[in-house]
């Protein structure tokens, strides 16, 4: 008997990616650069978040030709994004055979109330979260991997730090409360009791937790790993820097050896004169410009 698409198998691929860096790429050539630098997977999309932000309009699932071209160009797993709630786009990506679907706030939401019911899919999903309640709601819907939302395309790590700390603090807090309080905690978190109990018992989410949204330097990656991320998504940070090859490799090195200050220093030093992406102070963004506020 063979059982495909079980929770173990769907969560399992994310477990294989731990300690690694997943890079946004918009061409097969960029995908090869990412793989050469040591990326564990790539996110195939038409525009990186910084350019989605600049372009405005409606951001949708990328063209299948582009995604297929990237799948053909590399041997590492390929992820692709769908709009929040757009299960038909997700079905298309599953049919195409991508390895992971990101139900992403970076694209324009298709449903302002509900996320996709991810359980029936064979292809696993990753979803963004700003706090523990949001992470557990996504897992309840069937997400096999969670990432912080951060503020994609901002080049500013502050939101990712806020979200990662909120998720981790929420987990720690649950571990410390008496058993009889868990029902009320589940109510306050807006999450199923069963998941709240499992987090209280295990001291961690039942799926892998990555950081995303604003990582643009090796030190950013080391920071997030030390704050408890199990791996890193880098969107605009690599291909909006002045030397993407150097940035890609340096961010991989700093992620691998996040606890070794010497390796992180060498990774920073290897950048020489190259410049990180310019970045945005997220306090200057209008509420409608904040990706992280999409979906809850």
């Amino acid at each position: 008997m063979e059982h495909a698409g079980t929770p173990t198998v769907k969560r399992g691929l994310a477990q294989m990616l731990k300690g690694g860096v997943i890079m946004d790429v918009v061409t097969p050539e960029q995908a090869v650069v990412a793989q050469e630098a040591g990326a564990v997977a790539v996110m195939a999309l038409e525009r990186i978040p910084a350019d989605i932000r600049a372009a405005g309009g409606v951001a949708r699932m990328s063209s299948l030709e582009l995604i297929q071209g990237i799948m053909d160009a590399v041997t590492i797993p390929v992820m692709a994004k769908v709009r929040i709630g757009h299960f038909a786009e997700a079905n298309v990506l599953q049919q195409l055979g991508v390895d992971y679907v990101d139900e992403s706030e970076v694209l324009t939401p298709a449903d302002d109330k509900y996320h996709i019911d991810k359980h029936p899919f064979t292809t696993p999903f990753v979803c963004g979260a700003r706090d523990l309640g949001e992470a557990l709601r996504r897992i309840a819907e069937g997400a096999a991997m969670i990432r912080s939302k951060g503020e994609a395309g901002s080049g500013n790590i502050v939101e990712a730090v806020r979200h990662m700390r909120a998720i981790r603090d929420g987990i720690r807090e649950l571990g410390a409360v008496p058993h009889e309080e868990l029902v009320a905690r589940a109510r306050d978190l807006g999450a199923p009791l069963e998941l709240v109990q499992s987090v209280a018992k295990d001291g961690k989410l039942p799926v892998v937790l990555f950081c995303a949204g604003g990582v643009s330097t090796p030190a950013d990656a080391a920071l997030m790993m030390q704050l408890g991320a199990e791996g890193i998504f880098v969107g605009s940070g690599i291909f909006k820097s002045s030397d993407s090859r150097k940035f890609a490799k340096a961010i991989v090195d700093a992620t691998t050896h996040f606890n070794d200050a010497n390796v992180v220093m060498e990774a920073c030093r290897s950048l020489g004169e190259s410049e990180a992406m310019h970045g945005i102070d997220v306090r200057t963004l209008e509420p409608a410009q904040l990706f992280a506020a999409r979906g809850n």
Partner: protein
Amino acid sequence: MRPLVGVLALQGDVVEHVAALERAGAAALLVKTPCDLERIGGLIVPGGESTTVMKLLERFELAEPIVARVRAGMPFWGTCMGMIVAAHDVAGLEQPTLDLIDIGVRRNAFGRQNESAEVDLMIPVLGSEPFRAIFIRAPWIERAGPEVDVLAERAGHGVMVRQSNVLGTSFHPELGNDLRVHEYFLEMIGRPHLHVGKASAAA
């Protein structure tokens, strides 16, 4: 003394192996530097991305000392990515490897993630109970040299192999609850050159 088993901790499902080893009664050490290697009696290379880990092994100067220790007899077990890294060659790709075991592997041989699956596998060296094997974008063994014992097959392809002190599995025992492969490896650390028979049954 409990054997100290290293788990290569550059990338991948490291903590799952550590937890399984501890459940099986062994003490685990995360291996990130050449110094760590000197303290262990056996090494597990976990699941992960083989292209990434080969680059990191070279970049952080671990490839050479691992090859030296394994050639000198240290037991080695690679799961999925770890088996690819240990292979002699990777079919159809110009991918560097450590060449610790005389096999050729094919990456993602069963397909992409949608074809990843849990399979009840017959592994005669582990007894007659089937083993719930978790395959994730798994490789298979395309070619096995004369010194290599194929210990299990899935759909006609080798998925568990051993040559002397080197063990390879296409699947991930560390993701399940069955500790038999971990116990088998711990026995190899106790008796490194035990010879085993060929697998007779396939899934």
